[in-house]
């Protein structure tokens, strides 16, 4: 008896293989996405935490002009401070063979061997610099890889005006420099910015810092109040030219990495349950409908004398086989995809190691939710079928009773021809089911639109930044202030320079009401500048007022200041003037560096500072065909500490976005799989229910396309209702994702192109059409006579 049922089970499975495969596909897509997303997130978080801990990433950071070693002892005495590590850190320009553009190097003193220092170096290859190894450096791996350098390679650096040959003895990594770039750049650029760890004594002699330091890191005891420590550090280091201590959360590398992980988390926290929920709902619906179509067989089995239990178990096995296959495929596929994605991320972050960990709870959660959904859906219908008297069950369910829809009863005439009326009445006859199908399509659209929208926003931010705001080809920063006219003339005379726009950057404490913070003040030529300029909206440049200041929207929000308010500025250089200036305009800022920035007229700034007509750098427009000689020239100029090329930054940004694009493509594939599963099964069930009607239409002389219209028209209608909702959902989800992404480093303004909606709609429509077509092919193979004469 059971054997016969088992054979039936196998045959059933084979008969409904296409539908079963669609359900397996949906289940697999759901669990794979869930496992992949959560596995990636957990692994990255765990790896980051372990990396920070093992290499003692500091909690508080500060830079000073010059502080005697004795200050370090004072810092160590601050309550809550566990460890103090001082260093010498300098920006220099490098000359790397094969790189025509100027390359920036950050020289960092290597911890002494006996020192249990913070911000330790992980040596990937080679060794640390030996004491008094004056020409030796340990090079950051990202920089070495990007420039094809390795242990034994040599290059030149301009240190305090002297061109020195340095040799790589080790390749290293540090949690402090996972992401870094030239100060003032938008994106990390591995190729043009590297960290070089050198012997401390060598650096001390070169920069005249014997018995002193210009960089300090502090480790805190658990539970210490970071802000209290920062206040104490500021008090101790201010006389030494401290720029203001900051906590780990404001550390560029950490903030960027965290921003990345936060974005991933925001995506995952929404997407993972969404995927699982969508799939659970689908499973429930599909199983429910599948059992409904099995009603007659259930009646026959019961008529033969099979017990309710054995019939129930028979169908439960069918449900279980399908779901188990789907979940297994999903878990294995998800774990594999997760590892691949995590490896990509880890490689991108240059983690020295990777702790790939999918907790069993992630697997269990995915499996339990999906099982539950399938069983609840399957058993609900099964119970109904099993409880029917065999004599009732054995007959097909009575034909559905249609009534005029509520709208029609209210006097509205359904428009269109009879086939269209059939579609509308069928949809309205089962509003819950139609609604659920539409919801499935809508959710898949949401999953599709959201990542595309986030990608759009990132692209838009880059476009605004590089093509509307920062339009220079190159930015050079001087080692110290230089007299404006001679410096600009010198710059203009450099080969290939078409235009030079001066700026002076200086630090100031800004205060408004109770709020105070240290920010960068940029002095720029008055009026609307050609190259680098703040923006009023998306792309309208803002002029620099001759009196008053322009502040970023972020700063305005933080301070609570509006246009017309007077803001107090306490400059930290030259004669350290204290002034109150009116806000004349608010600029839009999307990138961290511009967040807390204040723009004012260069001449006015210089007049306030009282140290003459000086600048600290210039933005340059350069002849694209004539860059090499300029780069050569800049590399040999000791008074230049940094040179940043916008094209290189743009390229780096695009490399980063390529990563996001890959992730987006993966999500698109998942969404498409889900849509296919939903639509194919809906259409198959719809076909099963309406096979007689469709055959009758063929008999009446309706052509195949006209009959297909009944099925496809219904899908099209549901899709047409679902897609706008899905697009709206995608927009809202993207809004939540970009909100989650915004931090002190980035603010992603939500910007969705029509192309993204179009692309999402195309994918959905294409998938609907494909799955609909697969079902319509069955209409074309109808056995008309059989259906017309045997249907009851």
């Amino acid at each position, binding site marked *: 008896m059971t054997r016969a049922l088992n054979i039936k089970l196998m045959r059933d499975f084979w008969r409904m293989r296409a539908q079963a495969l669609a359900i397996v596909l949906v289940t697999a897509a759901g669990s794979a996405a869930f496992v992949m997303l959560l596995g990636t997130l957990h692994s990255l978080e765990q790896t980051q935490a372990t990396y920070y801990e093992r290499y003692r990433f500091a909690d508080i950071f500060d830079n000073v002009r010059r502080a005697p070693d004795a200050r370090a002892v004072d810092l160590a005495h601050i309550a809550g401070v566990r460890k103090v590590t001082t260093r010498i850190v300098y920006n220099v320009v490098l000359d790397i063979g094969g790189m025509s553009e100027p390359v920036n190097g950050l020289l960092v003193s290597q911890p002494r061997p006996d020192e249990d220092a913070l911000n330790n170096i992980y040596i990937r290859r080679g060794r640390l610099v030996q004491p008094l190894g004056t020409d030796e450096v340990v090079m950051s791996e990202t920089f070495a890889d990007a420039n094809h350098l390795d242990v034994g390679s040599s290059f030149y650096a301009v240190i305090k005006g002297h061109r020195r040959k340095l040799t790589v003895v080790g390749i290293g990594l540090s949690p402090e420099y996972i992401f870094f770039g030239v100060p003032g750049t938008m994106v990390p650029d591995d190729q043009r910015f590297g960290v070089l760890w050198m012997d401390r004594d060598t650096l001390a002699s070169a920069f005249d810092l014997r018995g002193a330091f210009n960089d300090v890191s502090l480790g805190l005891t658990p539970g210490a109040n970071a802000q209290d420590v920062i206040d104490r550090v500021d008090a101790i280091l201010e006389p030494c030219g401290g720029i203001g201590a900051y906590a780990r959360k404001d550390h560029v590398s950490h903030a960027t990495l965290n921003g990345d992980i936060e974005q991933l988390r925001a995506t995952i926290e929404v997407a993972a349950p969404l995927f699982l929920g969508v799939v659970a709902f689908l499973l429930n619906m599909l199983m429910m409908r599948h059992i409904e179509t099995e009603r007659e067989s259930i009646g026959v089995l019961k008529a033969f004398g099979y017990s309710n239990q054995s019939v129930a178990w028979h169908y439960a096995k069918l449900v279980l086989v399908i779901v188990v296959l789907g979940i297994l495929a999903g878990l294995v596929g998800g774990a594999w995809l997760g590892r691949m994605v995590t490896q990509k991320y880890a490689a991108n972050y240059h983690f020295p190691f990777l702790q790939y960990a999918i907790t069993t709870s992630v697997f269990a959660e995915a499996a339990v939710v999906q099982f539950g959904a399938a069983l609840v859906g399957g058993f609900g219908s099964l119970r109904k079928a099993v409880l029917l008297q065999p004599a009732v069950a054995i007959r097909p369910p009575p*034909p*559905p*009773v*249609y*009534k005029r829809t509520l709208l029609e009863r209210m006097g509205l005439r359904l428009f269109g*021809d*009879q*086939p269209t*009326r*059939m579609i509308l*009445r*069928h949809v309205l*006859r089962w509003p819950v089911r139609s609604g659920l199908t539409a919801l499935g399509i809508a959710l898949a659209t949401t999953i599709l639109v959201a990542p595309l929208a986030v990608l759009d926003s990132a692209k838009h931010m880059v476009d605004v930044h590089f093509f509307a705001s920062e339009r220079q080809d190159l930015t050079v920063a001087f080692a110290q202030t230089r007299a404006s006219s001679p410096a600009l003339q010198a710059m203009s005379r450099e080969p290939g320079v078409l235009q030079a726009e001066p700026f002076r950057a200086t630090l100031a404490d800004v205060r408004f009401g109770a709020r105070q913070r240290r920010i960068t003040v940029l002095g720029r030529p008055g009026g609307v500048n050609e190259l680098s300029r703040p923006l009023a909206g998306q792309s309208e440049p803002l002029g620099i007022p001759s009196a008053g200041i322009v502040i970023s929207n972020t700063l305005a929000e933080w301070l609570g200041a509006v246009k017309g308010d007077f803001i107090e500025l306490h400059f930290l250089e030259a004669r350290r003037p204290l002034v109150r200036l009116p806000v004349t305009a608010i600029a839009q800022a999307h990138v961290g560096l511009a967040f807390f920035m204040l723009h004012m007229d260069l001449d006015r700034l210089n007049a306030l500072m009282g140290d003459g007509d000086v600048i600290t750098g210039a933005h340059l427009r350069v002849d694209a065909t004539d860059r090499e000689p300029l780069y050569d020239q800049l590399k040999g100029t000791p008074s230049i500490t940094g040179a940043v090329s916008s094209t290189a930054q743009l390229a780096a940004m695009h490399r980063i976005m390529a990563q996001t694009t890959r992730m987006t493509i993966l999500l698109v594939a998942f969404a498409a799989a889900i849509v296919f599963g939903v639509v194919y099964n809906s259409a198959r069930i719809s076909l099963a229910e309406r096979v*007689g*009607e469709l*055959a*009758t*239409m*063929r*008999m*009446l*002389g*309706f*052509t*195949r396309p*006209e009959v297909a219209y009944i099925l496809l028209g219904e899908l099209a209608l549901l899709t047409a209702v679902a897609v706008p909702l899905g697009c709206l959902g995608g927009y809202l989800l993207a809004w939540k994702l970009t909100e989650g992404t915004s931090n002190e480093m980035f603010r992603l303004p939500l910007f969705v192109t029509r192309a993204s909606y179009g692309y999402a709609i195309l994918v959905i429509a294409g998938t609907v059409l494909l799955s609909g077509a697969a079902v319509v092919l069955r209409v074309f193979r109808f056995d*008309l*006579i059989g259906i*017309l*004469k045997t*249907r*009851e």
Partner: protein
Amino acid sequence: MTPGEPAFTAIALAKAYQTEAGEVHALRGIDLELPEGEFLVLLGPSGSGKSTFLNILGGLDQPTTGQILFRGQDLSGYTERELTAYRREAVGFVFQIYNLMPSLTALENVALAAEIARDPLDPEEALDLVGLANRRGHFPAELSGGEQQRVAVARAIAKRPDVLLCDEPTGALDSRTGIVVLEAIARARRTLGTTTVLITHNASIGGMADRVVHFADGRIAGMRVNDSPRAPAELSW
């Protein structure tokens, strides 16, 4: 269309089906001529081939060998597309099961067929012909079996078909209801002059035909011309 001219001509019409048990011969050489406007009743036991013959006449099936001419055109050479067009323009079907669209009202079911025809009756007029003008707004689930079948008849004649093909139209109905349906068919035929072929197990229905053909084992076993066809109301079984 000229009365007296053949609407259909079957020449050595044969149909065989391949089954796992071997070849089954449903029709074994039928030669028959149907004049325009004739009312033909096919009688015969199950499996005698009458339904296969009707399906071939209606363009739902094609013969294995032989010819079936409709007004001189050989239907056996028609493509799927041509057969669909033929059914659309020329044929009205009524089956034992009504095959109505549950989501459309009586009137809308009739309109479904009328909308794709070249020169249809007004759907209301078609419903009126079968005596259901007062039930036009009802859905199939709200109609009795006999009413549903009359809607099916109205749907079949709404396109003004050249031929009306009825396969056991009263098979599922009691005699009183069956007669009402037959009256609807007779009235429609009279009004439109449609060539009509009706299959039945019920020999007494032959009384309303112009000619009765007996099928047995895929062949024509007998034929009887009815000189004075009776009205359905005069029939009883």
